């Protein structure tokens, strides 16, 4: 029983963290039209920063590890710094990677950035301990909370889900705001958006930075949970898992991306654990990537809007909440408005 509970709670934590990633990508792509193929490096920097500032001084326990400055900041500072790190990295990369150019070139630039970052961090042991990565990151409040390890698991589940809820409220509020509409206008017709006085360069950078901050936060949460982080965890292909989740579930719709996250990185990627092993070692892993690619293609061909499509913001004479607040109208108030309209 204990093992199962441990497994389920772990999945729930991963789910919450992947949902954060999906929110971030959805804001950037679904609303801003930016195909961020370098997503994973923003999560990675969050993880590295949170790890570096909480590892503490070198005790000799992990002999092969270089310690950055021996800081061991109290909760929640590492998470805040992780969030900031994601934002700052996004600002730096966005200011050259988001120049006005064709969308496909932009995507290519971001993918290349992701590959370079991975190579550099893997090879340079002084940065974040190279390909071995960092280990021994303590869990936040792990010594203060007098709980069994299973109890702690559940606390972490609740904690990540709470953060998910808060981030959801934030991104939703932003996307129904005039700023969010300007974002969609830029996505649909950049020239027309500019000709309404919208500074699309700034807008793109803003949404990229906000997405980067959420990514950094997700990385911090992840490393504090698993206690270790290395290049093995953030290959460029990880970005594609989240993107696939977003496309399958329904980009531009927050419920859709949550559903996609449940289907792709959780249900689908966990499935092989329950299959009898077959083929040579590593075959199942490789097949997973093949199927991820197929899923992405299939969803674009069969149902490009995703399982749950974008919600239409409906308005009626005198009732504009659909557009101004993204609020759908109840059947009752709908009937009332229509009656009033008919008069």
């Amino acid at each position, binding site marked *: 029983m204990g093992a199962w509970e441990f497994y389920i709670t772990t999945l729930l934590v991963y789910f919450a963290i992947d949902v954060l990633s999906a929110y971030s990508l959805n804001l950037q792509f679904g609303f801003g039209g930016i195909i961020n193929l370098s997503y994973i490096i923003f999560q990675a920097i969050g993880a590295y920063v949170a790890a570096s500032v909480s590892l503490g001084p070198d005790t000799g326990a992990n002999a092969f590890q270089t310690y950055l400055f021996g800081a061991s900041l109290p909760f929640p500072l590492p998470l805040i710094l992780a969030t900031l790190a994601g934002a700052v990295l996004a600002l730096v990369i966005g200011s050259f990677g988001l120049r006005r150019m064709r969308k496909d070139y932009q995507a290519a630039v971001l993918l290349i950035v992701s590959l370079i970052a991975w190579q550099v961090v893997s090879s340079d042991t002084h940065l974040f301990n190279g390909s071995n990565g960092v280990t021994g990151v303590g869990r936040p409040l792990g010594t203060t909370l007098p709980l069994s390890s299973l109890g702690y698991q559940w606390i972490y589940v609740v904690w990540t889900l709470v953060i998910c809820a808060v981030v959801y409220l934030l991104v939703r509020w932003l996307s129904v705001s*005039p700023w969010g509409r300007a974002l*969609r206008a830029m996505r649909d*017709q950049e020239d027309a958006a*500019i000709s309404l*006085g919208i500074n699309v360069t700034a807008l793109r950078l803003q949404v990229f930075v906000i997405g980067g901050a959420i990514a950094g936060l997700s990385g911090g949460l992840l490393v504090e949970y698993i206690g270790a982080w290395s290049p093995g965890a953030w290959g460029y292909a990880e970005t594609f898992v989240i993107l696939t989740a977003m496309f399958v579930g329904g980009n531009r719709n927050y419920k859709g991306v949550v559903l996609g996250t449940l289907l792709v990185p959780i249900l689908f990627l966990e499935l092989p654990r329950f299959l009898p092993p077959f083929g040579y070692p590593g075959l199942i892993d490789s097949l997973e990537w093949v199927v991820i690619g197929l899923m992405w293609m299939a969803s674009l061909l069969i149902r490009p809007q995703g399982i749950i499509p974008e919600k239409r*913001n409906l*308005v009626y004479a005198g009732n*504009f909440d659909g*557009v*101004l607040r993204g609020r759908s109208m109840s059947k009752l108030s709908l009937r009332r408005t229509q009656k009033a309209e008919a008069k």
Partner: protein
Amino acid sequence: MIESEKLADAPVERTASDGDGRVVLSARDVVVRYGGVVAVDGVSFDVKAGEAVGLIGPNGAGKSTMLASLGGQAKAAGGSILLDGRDVTKLSAYRRARLGLLRTFQSTSEFGDMTTFENLVTAGNGFKGASLTSVVFHRKENSRSDREIAGRAWEMLERFDMTHVANAYAKELSGGQRRLVEIMRCLMTSPKLLLLDEPMVGVAPHLVEKLVGDLCAIRDEGISIIIVEHALEVVRALSNRVVVMSFGKKIADAPYDEIVNNREVQDAYLG
């Protein structure tokens, strides 16, 4: 914020015109090149407050390119553009828009995955709405002005018999309806100068009349208009003055009646 938003906060002066003859826009020897092609070749003209100018000429004459150089979409290789006496030649397109220079495009430019209503509200919000600082720090005032803008957007739809497609995505609209969305979008802002590139293409005849009426009303409010249009009856109804272009050059600049009797214009354009 990332980009200076001082312009956003500066109140924009809008003087109601009483035909005071104040020059709003002045193009001086504007040259635009596409590689080897000189699309606009030293064109100059002035537009006064509340004046509507027709810009006509055969296909490929450089009319759209001229508008693009005024709007900032195309870079002028020579000459200068003054808006209210201020040199805006080096100013990017969005900054010119903030100064009150609004435009439509020859190919429709609706926000396709937004509803008709959202298209109008987005225009009404304008660049202030796109400002993150304003969204975060002025929530109360914004929610009030959002309601006011939404109300205006609905009235606009009523005015053009478009309430039945308020909730349609703009990409689902017909060609003529998309044109209307573009023009309504411009009307939602309060421009100083409107650049319209063939706004009547695909619009139903009875709506053309209505649109011309509306544009006349706008003009009489003191907003200047430059309209590129092949339908000469529209130009005649709206503009007191017509500029004719051919092969990138300005070949005439006179009242409509003179233009139609002008030999050179007839040769180049009217046939």
